[in-house]
């Protein structure tokens, strides 16, 4: 493992499997009456959120606390362009406080990369979503969920067909998932209107389709991305209704899925836009499990970056069983 987790592309296949295996072991903690391990006692994890994201922040907070780390939540809205402290000064402040890991959410693509490489701070940097770039722990929790549901919670995702639908252009979740899932051997297909696909997508390690219907029956998992309504005013598509008709997941499309296939969404959902309420609440939907798995995966990432630089399994076994 690298010192930082900035991009899902930083993870080799063995790194990714190590995170998933570690997460699987740490997940057992959640089933116990006392959901806490002493592993990161005395270590400080800072959640540095320049953008509101209660879901991601509490997930990281729960993960760090279950490992007994001290957690500081630092909500630093505004950046050097608006009023408020610059990224550099914020980083220097955290460094002075002795942060061992900084979990960063930022609206600007590459901000975690800057923190990690500027020399402003010495701790590990974990990207918790940066602009329209990446969200690697989301991809890890998605991979974990896919493995649980489609591969008995073991090994890689070789040959699993994952379809990601929606606003790929602006989605950090899509970028990280394409990188990580392809590393794990899955066959990824992106589905979106041409306006919502980035230039150069044909070079990504995945297939691309403008039509959803032909892809759905051949999918083991369909991941719906949030589509913001303001994309309509920017003429990425004509109307919300047309988007829903062409790219939304409703009961009819869901019925084309094979029996074992699952429906995913990174949240927050726009019910009625990219996914109907019926689908979101159906048995195929694993959306709530994704959230639960997020905590385990983030525990694993914190553990591996801060606790054990060496292969983690024996140590984790020891801890899990010794408590």
């Amino acid at each position, binding site marked *: 493992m690298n010192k930082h987790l900035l991009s899902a592309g930083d993870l080799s296949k063995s790194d990714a499997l190590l995170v998933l295996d570690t997460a699987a072991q740490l997940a057992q903690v959640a089933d116990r009456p006392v959901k806490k391990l002493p592993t990161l006692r005395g270590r400080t994890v800072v959640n540095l959120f320049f953008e509101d994201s209660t879901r991601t922040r509490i997930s990281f907070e729960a993960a760090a606390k279950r490992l007994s780390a001290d957690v500081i939540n630092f909500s630093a809205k505004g*950046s050097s362009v608006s009023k408020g402290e610059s990224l550099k000064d914020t980083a220097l402040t955290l460094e002075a406080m002795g942060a061992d890991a900084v979990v960063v959410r930022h*609206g600007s*693509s590459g901000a975690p990369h*800057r923190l990690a490489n500027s020399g402003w701070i010495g701790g590990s940097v974990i990207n918790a979503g*940066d602009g329209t770039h*990446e969200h690697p722990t989301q991809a890890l929790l998605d991979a974990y969920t896919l493995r649980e549901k489609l591969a008995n919670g073991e090994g890689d995702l070789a040959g699993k067909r994952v379809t990601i639908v929606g606003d790929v252009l602006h989605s950090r979740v899509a970028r990280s998932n394409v990188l990580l899932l392809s590393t794990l051997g899955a066959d990824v297909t992106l589905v979106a209107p041409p306006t919502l696909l980035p*230039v*150069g997508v044909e070079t990504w390690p995945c297939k691309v389709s403008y039509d959803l219907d032909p892809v759905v029956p051949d999918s083991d998992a369909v991941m719906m991305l949030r589509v913001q309504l303001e994309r309509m005013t920017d003429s990425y598509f004509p109307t919300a209704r047309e988007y829903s008709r062409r790219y939304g997941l409703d009961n009819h499309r869901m019925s084309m899925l094979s029996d074992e296939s699952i429906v995913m969404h990174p949240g927050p959902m726009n019910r009625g836009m990219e996914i109907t309420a019926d689908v979101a609440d159906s048995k195929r939907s694993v959306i709530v499990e994704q959230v639960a798995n997020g905590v385990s995966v983030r525990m694993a990432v914190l553990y591996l970056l801060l606790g054990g630089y060496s292969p983690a399994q024996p140590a984790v076994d020891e801890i899990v069983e010794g408590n």
Partner: protein
Amino acid sequence: MSRLVITGASILNQATADIVIDSGKIVEVAKPGAADTFGARVIDAAGLIALPGFVDLHTHLREPGREDAETVESGTRAAALGGFTCVHAMANTEPVADTAGVVEQVWRLGKEAGWCEVRPIGAVTVGLAGTHMAELGAMAASAAQVRLFSDDGKCVDDAVIMRRALEYVKAFDGAIAQHAQEPRLTEGAQMNEGVLSGTLGLRGWPAVAEEAIIARDVLLTQHVNSRLHVCHVSTAGSVELIRWAKSKGINVTAEVTPHHLLLTDELARSYDPHFKVNPPLRTQEDVLALREGLADGTIDAVATDHAPHPSEDKECEWSAAAFGMLGLETALSVVVESMVNTGLLDWAGVADRMSIRPAAIGRVRDQGGRLEVGQPAHVTLVDPHASWTVRPNELASRSRNTPYRERVLPGRVVHTIFDGKPTVIDGQTERMH
């Protein structure tokens, strides 16, 4: 004592000669050792190449308004160190150089500083707002004698305003220097649009946004029979369009920056805003097309787009950072690396693209002359075999935002003579006055 003798210099890397300068003019070009050095200041230039002083068509001196980033004095001192004897000061100051008063102020500050000639560029529209033509005639008639007009930083995107400006400047032999950037296609743009922008999640600045404006403008220029200069051409497609326009006899000239001749968008992978510039760094294919265009004369001039910014505007996240990079002190070395050492341009070509043609485009009467008797004595002496390491703290500019930090670059400006007086000796500025 105003006699100066440069001994043993190789003029344009061709014939070696002694150059005798008196009262701001070249008075004699003699065989080596033949010049009378008695009572004169002698500059030993053995092994150095003598070129006419460089003329920059695109410099941001930031004064008035942003003296924290650069002043006319500090910027022109950097220019002298880079071998320039004339710079064109861009209009996007605060206040904007859109009146005779502001351009005369900048011109006078340049005179007072004395490091090189400062030719202000006037804004095309009031406040660079793109809606009302500024008093171009007043700026042309002022002491600053403005001949180039530009809303640089912003594109004159309204076709009617652009047409009118092109027509209007014909009255005083002016030209419009266009920053070609279709605004709607580049809203929020952060870097070249391509495979990399998609991967990095940075909003793309597509080549077509530059090329569409150039295509429109060369046709407008043809239609009203005026003169167009295209600022900082950055794409292979733009080179093709300008080549086509010139083949049709359209009166268009173009410049390329040193950084677009050397650097590519791959540098954005670092998310280091020192590589954030407008127009953005493009692909290797574009770089090669720009070099070829400069070599064959499709692109007329190298222009630095020297754009100083205080460190807080670069020590931040990419999207929050300012666009632009320093260029004056590294221009010659980057041209040597990208054009001379690659065999694309000889030293006569360097003189042509960095002095003679830019002076002609700017209608600068006393610059860009050949190193011949009777010409104004603006001379840059270059050591083609030296190399140096770029250290931001050692630059004369008030800002530090060079993209070449710790990079070793070939070729070095050793001496600069402006108007018969040395401004730079042995790579150090002379105390003026």
